[in-house]
């Protein structure tokens, strides 16, 4: 077989030929024999074990953590459901106290070095830290806000301050935040699947309180009302997670008697707001796919879905 025939066979296998080229290939027994062996080779190359679900979930959790860092105002909506706790506010306050204390240290340090030593980069950093602390220490701030406070203080100091003293203080911020109870979040390394899994594992997985928080700590979040119509995919996901938890602790009410396939795993019926209309649906929980599906009650066709928030053993 010459090189042209071999290239032709490869392009044939890859579906990259024109009709004329395909006819030419099919008329050549040598090319077609090579095609057969290339098909086998392709199948062998493509035969890859699928990733384990927990590895997948850890990877996606790590990526979503990064997403949250980049757009904290809206991106925290895929965190596992959790109830707000007073502890989180205390953590935010602790972070703010650490930040204010740090600011004092910086001012004192700069003062000791003399006014003329304060270069513009340091001034900018002080300003950044001050505004960061002020912004992040708002009364309603909680765990993630505290993360941002600690992270931004550390990051900004590391990036903007050139002196060794500044770097040490930046490290102190992280350490102080950890001492204040932020270690699980503010200093978590999500760069490996195992660490990301640890981050997820710190979230409460089973909570029988129906007041599931669908979105998290910021002001845009809302508390799920299990009787109100579901209005978005996150509420749907949170409600499915809630149902699954109820099932785990044996408190799930009898599931609806439906004609839908059992593998849909329908656990409840609810009303969702679909295209501005209230629609009666079944709620199905797909544990393997980590999805919660709203299913049409007449046709059993999935209408919308949301993410199942938990990573269960």
């Amino acid at each position, binding site marked *: 077989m010459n090189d042209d025939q071999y290239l032709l066979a490869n392009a044939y296998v890859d579906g990259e030929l024109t009709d004329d080229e395909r006819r030419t290939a099919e008329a050549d027994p040598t090319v077609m024999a090579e095609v057969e062996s290339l098909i086998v080779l392709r199948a062998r190359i493509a035969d890859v074990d699928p990733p384990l679900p927990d*590895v*997948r979930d850890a990877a996606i959790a790590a990526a979503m953590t990064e997403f949250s860092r980049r757009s904290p105002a809206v991106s925290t909506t895929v965190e596992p459901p959790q109830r707000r706790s007073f502890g989180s506010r205390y953590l935010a306050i602790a972070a703010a106290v650490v930040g204010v204390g740090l600011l004092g240290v910086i001012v004192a340090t700069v003062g000791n070095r003399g006014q003329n030593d304060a270069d513009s980069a340091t001034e900018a950093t002080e300003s950044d830290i001050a505004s960061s602390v002020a912004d992040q220490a708002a009364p309603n701030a909680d765990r993630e806000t505290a993360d941002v406070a600690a992270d931004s203080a550390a990051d900004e100091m590391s990036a903007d301050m050139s002196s060794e003293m500044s770097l040490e203080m930046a490290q102190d911020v992280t350490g102080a935040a950890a001492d204040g109870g932020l270690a699980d979040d503010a200093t978590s390394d999500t760069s490996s699947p195992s660490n990301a899994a640890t981050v997820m594992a710190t979230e409460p997985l089973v909570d029988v309180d129906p007041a599931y928080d669908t979105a998290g700590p910021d002001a845009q979040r809302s508390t799920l009302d299990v009787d109100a119509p579901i209005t978005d995919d996150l509420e749907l996901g949170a409600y499915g997670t809630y149902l699954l938890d109820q099932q785990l602790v044996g408190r799930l009410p009898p599931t609806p008697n439906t004609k839908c396939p059992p593998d849909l795993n329908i656990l409840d019926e609810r009303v969702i707001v679909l295209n501005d209309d209230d629609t009666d649906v079944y709620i199905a929980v797909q544990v393997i796919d980590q999805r919660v599906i709203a299913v049409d009650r007449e046709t059993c066709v999935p209408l919308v879905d949301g993410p199942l928030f938990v990573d269960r053993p």
Partner: protein
Amino acid sequence: MTALARSDDELVAAAQRGDGAAMDQLLRRHYGRVHAVCRRIAGSTRDADDAAQEAMIRVVRNLDRFDGRSAFGTWVYRIATNTALDELRKRKRRPQLHVVGPDDAEAGPREPVDDMAHRAVDGVADRLSIDAALAELPDEFKAAVIMRDVGDLDYAEIAVALDIPIGTVKSRIARGRRILVEQLGNQETTPERPTDNPPHDP
């Protein structure tokens, strides 16, 4: 309320506006193939796990820069390929554990318990031989072959992803497969493990 089967473009636009659910859906949609690409390039499941996770993070970090000139999947698999190649280079710089091979089996061959077990063993052996052959493949050929055969990208998409002409894609894939066939042929002509039917004494 989010409808099922939103397109990548719709999800990307939503994710770029900060929609976490859209981002999550995009990542889940592409993770399987990203992992497969990483698995084939990096050569081990553990490294593939790390590379796939890093690729997911890079996708998030760079999402704002994605301008839609290529398909989102093409862009993602390009990131996955580059990340896996990075992982591979890192691994080559660090000491490796010894992989137990047939020469280490001093206790003699183990007999398969049943036919299914035998098939499973064959399957593992086949994947190992593919891994070994891919490991010998130069990176530029490996990337093209894996993007085609695992990532299922067409030549034009691979050309965009690797920033090379389509003709180069075509030749790299063909040459890469030829090298793989040669490698696999060498492996298969070498008796790596005992067969079920040992030769009879003369």
